[in-house]
């Protein structure tokens, strides 16, 4: 009879977290993606444009804002190709994340798609647009040829 190995570890009881994140105050951002808009927030008092959008302005402490569409062109400041991916992104092949400064002045972090890996360059011109993925509405960059 084989001897059981000594038990040197206790398996914890499992726990699963799925957080329900309130989006009520910024719901138009998510609705906007469905309608083909990428919205930043513009403070109704001091006029500061913020992306990702915020419901409250940290500069003038005002909570009123309007939506401005920031789709358009920009320039890549930096990027990476994510090869080792988190479990929740295993269904995606290697993806490219870029940060671009839009001509309007705001910076955006998003995927750069439709490229060969060597085509991503700091300084390359990109277009930001609302898109749809299998997981729902999102936004991303494509290279301007």
């Amino acid at each position, binding site marked *: 009879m084989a001897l059981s190995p000594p038990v*040197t570890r206790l398996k914890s009881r499992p726990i699963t977290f799925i957080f329900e994140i309130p989006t009520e105050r910024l719901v138009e951002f998510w609705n906007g993606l469905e309608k083909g808009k990428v919205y930043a927030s513009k403070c109704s008092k001091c006029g500061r444009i913020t992306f*990702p959008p915020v419901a409250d302005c940290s500069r003038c402490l005002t909570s009123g804002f309007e939506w401005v569409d920031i789709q358009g062109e920009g320039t890549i*400041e*930096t*990027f*990476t190709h*994510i090869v080792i991916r988190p479990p929740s992104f295993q269904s995606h092949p290697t993806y490219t994340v870029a940060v671009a400064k839009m001509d309007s002045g705001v910076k955006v972090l998003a995927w750069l798609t439709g490229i060969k890996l060597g085509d991503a360059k*700091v300084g390359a011109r990109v277009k930001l647009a609302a898109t749809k993925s299998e997981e729902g509405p999102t936004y991303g960059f494509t290279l301007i040829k």
Partner: protein
Amino acid sequence: MKRVAIVGVGHSKFGVRRDVNLPELGFEAAKPAFEDANLTPKDIDFLSVGTAGGWYEEFLPAVVVSEYLGLSGKGLVRCEAACASGSAAVATAFHTIASGQSDVAMAVGIEKMSEVDTLTGVELIGRAGYYTWEFHNFGMTFPGYYALHATQHMKKYGTTEKQLAEVAVKNHKYGAMNPNAHLQRAIQIDDVLSSRMVAWPLKLYDCCPMSDGAAALILASEEKAKSLTDSPVWIEAIGMSSDTANVSKRVEYASLLATVIASKNAFKKANVGPDQIDVADVHDCFTIAELLAYEDLGFCKKGEAGKMIDEGQTEIGGKIPVNVDGGLKAKGHPIGATGVSMMVGLTRQLRKQAGKVQAPIKNGLALAHNVGGTGHYCYVTILRS
């Protein structure tokens, strides 16, 4: 503000520590700290525990560690500043003494990262930015964040993948001499360049390991320190800063602004400059992070970190020895332990107890640079013998 001295240091073995649970690991670091200070748990007024947590079973880790160390009843807090949690714990213990709240305080930095599998760790630490805007849709990873910094530094200053690899080679060389290091083996440039891609341009050997480990410091007021030891190491100054959660809101990526602000603040408080530091530990969670630190701390000019590593200026015998304990890269990075571990190593340096990796001590000054997240938090601590 009262002066505060380090009077006891202790360090566990770093690595995959499936042989001990969380508080046992803490004990392994705390016991030698008590012995070094010639104190017992009853002499401690306050304990701060630096740990990020989330990858081990305890929800109130500070309480578990405190009970195990016989410190129940003392003042207690858990400090979280991501990978700078250890420095945050030291700063918190420091402040209790500097303000007169306590005479003797202990800071324990601890992390146990191997109780979950590696990919679960990737999932957790990928959220070390702004979950909603950077992880939820775009699956950022921690190496991915530092890769954004590397890409811009390479473009702006011509830094090469080979120069990044030189950082790993240096730190592994010293890690091989540290009996507490996670990775105790020397490596070559080609080992780094040929290792698997993680997040371009960072490869596996550009990345520190996920480690288990703990480190402990005992701090005392000036009067108390002088009664305990002839060789106190003073915490001369602590500079602190932070930056935006969204990496897209940063001014630039070829620099960590939090390091620039925290170090300026620390140098000003200590009334010293970067060229007076004898030995430093900088936050090399990725090879690029060490190069950013050289520039942001003022060890070299902007854009010259690649040259500095090429010339061996950060090895023992160079302009300023950096990470001669192996750094996060080879010693390992149990994230809450790291800041405390840096100060354990630097205290030994200033006491001239560092053995084979002893740096020349001319001014009696050492610097610990501890970053949390990708520059989300930064603590720069200057020690003086």
